[in-house]
């Protein structure tokens, strides 16, 4: 809301300065916005030759890349959504306020870890390890949620003194050593389990029984690595949405006889639903465009395969390794720019959707807050 100006000043110089400055700011602002707009225009312009020819070959070349991009993003989201939403629900609704002010920035710090570092760890350290210890890795993935449930059960059976010592509101912190212990336990037991149940080598079993190939760098690795990178962005937005749910809603539900968990599950989650949805959308946008992690951890095989143990090739990674070598104006150049355009449009749409939903939600909360 621009304040109305009182132009009673008697100094024309000041007014002139003001006019000029306003003009400059306007010009600068519009210029910056145009520059941003130029990205879209450039991408469309450079892909026009390809579209003009109506090249079907281009589509055939692009489709495995598109599939790879989706597969990588899906794998990442499969891992990231449960963890990020669980973390968001816990830290918005259960965690002690004291702990929350420390944990939230720490988790958001995960987002700052550069993709190239995560990709290096995933591609050169994690991938060979999982290849040698596939059974252990799968066992860890299965056992972690169970061990969390086990912790809950033990806690409920425990004496009240212990319960007061280790309250649920601090569980996010004191479960860390518990989980570490559980991981260590599984790693210690897994070779024995593999020997007993899978005849000593899970990969051989996969191959002989199901005819599944195993590539060192595969969707599983990409899912874990990129999931790690996506968790903080989903977590942060979903947590905001949940924490903003007016407390009157939850209290009201409890007053009507709902259990605390029912109140949270039915009321808070429903109320924050659109916010959570937009958080997931933002996460999906990030996963689709992430370059270095996929480049380093996916094996870059242009395959149409849904197997979690086979690699894929994403559009972003293809652009990064092939564009510098593509001669400007050539077919590959235009094709890769088309891939960039697809990425641009996709993320832009997804983000816009998320933004609009979030905006609506905020307005609704404001109304609720106003009526209470």
């Amino acid at each position, binding site marked *: 809301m621009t304040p109305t100006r009182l132009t009673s000043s008697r100094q024309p110089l000041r007014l002139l300065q003001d006019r000029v400055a306003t003009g400059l700011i306007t010009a600068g602002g519009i210029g910056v916005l145009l520059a941003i707009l130029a990205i879209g225009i450039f991408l469309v312009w450079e892909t026009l030759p390809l579209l003009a020819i109506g090249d079907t070959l281009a589509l055939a070349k692009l489709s495995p890349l598109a599939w790879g991009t989706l597969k990588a993003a899906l794998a990442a989201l499969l891992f990231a959504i449960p963890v990020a939403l669980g973390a968001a629900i816990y830290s918005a609704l259960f965690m002690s306020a004291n702990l929350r002010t420390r944990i939230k920035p720490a988790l958001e710090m995960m987002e700052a870890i550069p993709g190239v570092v995560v990709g290096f760890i995933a591609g050169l350290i994690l991938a060979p390890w999982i290849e*040698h210890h596939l059974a252990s890795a799968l066992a860890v993935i299965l056992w972690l949620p169970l061990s969390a449930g086990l912790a809950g059960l033990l806690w409920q059976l425990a004496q009240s003194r212990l319960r007061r010592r280790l309250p649920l509101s601090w569980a996010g912190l004191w479960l860390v050593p518990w989980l570490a212990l559980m991981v260590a336990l599984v790693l210690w037991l897994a070779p024995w389990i593999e020997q007993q149940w899978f005849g000593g080598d899970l990969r051989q079993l996969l191959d002989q029984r199901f005819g599944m190939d195993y590539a060192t760098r595969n969707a599983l690795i990409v899912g874990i690595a990129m999931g790690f990178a996506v968790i903080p962005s989903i977590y942060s937005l979903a947590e905001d949405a949940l924490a903003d749910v007016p407390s009157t809603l939850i209290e009201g539900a409890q007053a009507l006889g709902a259990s605390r968990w029912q109140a949270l599950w039915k009321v808070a989650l429903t109320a924050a639903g659109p916010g959570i949805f937009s958080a997931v959308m933002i996460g999906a946008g990030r996963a689709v465009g992430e370059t270095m992690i996929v480049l380093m951890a996916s094996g870059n095989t242009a395959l149409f395969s849904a197997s979690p143990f086979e690699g894929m090739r994403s559009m972003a990674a293809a652009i990064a390794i092939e564009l510098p070598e593509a001669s400007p104006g050539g077919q590959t150049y235009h094709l890769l720019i088309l891939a960039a355009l697809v990425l641009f449009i996709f993320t832009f749409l997804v*983000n816009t959707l998320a933004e609009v939903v979030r905006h609506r939600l905020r307005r609704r909360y404001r109304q609720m807050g106003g009526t209470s």
Partner: protein
Amino acid sequence: MNSGAANTVSRSPRFHWLNNLWPWLCAASVALSLLMLSALLVLLLVRGLGHFWPATLEEVTLSSGETFAGEAIREVALPQQEGDERLYFTGNQDIDGVRWRWVAIDDIVERSQPNDLIRLERSPWGDFIGRLVAVEQAGQRWEGEAAWQRLTTLLALPASQRQESQLLLTTANGQALRQPLANVASAQTPNAMAWWQKTHAWGDSVWRFLSEGPRAANTHGGVWPAIFGTVLMVILMSVIVTPFGVLAAIYLNEIAHQGRLTRLVRIGVRNLAGVPSIVYGVFGLGVFVYGVGGSLDEWFFSDTLPSPTFGTGGLLWASLTLALLTLPVVIVATEEGLARIPEAQREGAVALGATRLEMLTRIVLPMAAPAMLTGVILAVARAAGEVAPLMLVGVAKLAPQMPIDGEFPYLHLERKFMHLGYHLFDTAFHGEDVQAAIPLVYATALLLVLIVVVLNLTAIFLRHYLRRQRGNEC
């Protein structure tokens, strides 16, 4: 919200305990995220810093009677067979043709750690591991303990002053070697060192890693040019992005008519923060490098064509691309700061007769300064960790010429530069020997993470601190 779940009076007692497990799963999600984060950081810290600790050298005798000396690296299980095998770094590429050796552990008869094993860092053949027999210089000869003394004195001299010196060396299996001292960079007897000597050597290596340039095709040496390149690029980027970002934010928030269009533009800008960085890289390559750069070359640098000046990736284009990439971050943060300023402040200023310019520069901007600063720091943190767009617009595997030097015009915007993130990718995937490069990659990764985390922490504390201060004022 403390320990509420336990006190619940559930209406369906049969599912009550199952229902109460959900919060635990959620709590475990937080714990899992923290566990992964700390595992990553601990891994980087241990491997990144541990690499510089002088490693113990072993002399190994195999069941075949063969002896060799080396540093034990890691062990893996033998495929299809019982037992493990161990990887040794044995150096001596000029004698053996290889630098690594895999040995089945069952094959090892004897392992010892003799104090007289030395490790030389040399070029072009890489490390030597073995024993020092004698030092020869200008007809003189030192042997035994005196040879080691002489070697350390000579190594303290600059390389040009030890041209005539030679080392007589033997490997663990008795092969003799003559090594000109001029090609030797450093010497160690790690098994004979006390812990404080090792600590000293560790500090020394860390310092050399931070302060020296890479050697031997990026497989040895330090990352100083990469640190310098990263920092310079980020500084240039913030110099470009700050005024434009602030200008756009002021326009959007203070001048533009607050209608549907402005709201659309705002959403658009916000969304650009989510557009993949590689897309910006494509834009930078197509428009800045090929478009603007190519034209600049034709107009101003046609005499040096076909060697390009600006028509190739370089510092300027990289900074511009990253500035565009981080523009939304700065705009959004600044706008948030502007929106938080109470309308009364603006109205008060105008009521007292200030023009809009005066109102902006004296009231609004100073109040929004913390938000702008936060925006810029967040932008810097994002830019410092970005690699993908830089691969298209101007990083080099090795750029021995710093972008700043004593030559006019001192700051060379057209030069390529090294970047920590790309250096990491390059040594890990393009290098000659991944196995040899991995410790350096860990160290580089640690450094990069530290820089980015420190920048982010600064932004968080700054925001926190300034908000609280503002809270006191109000």
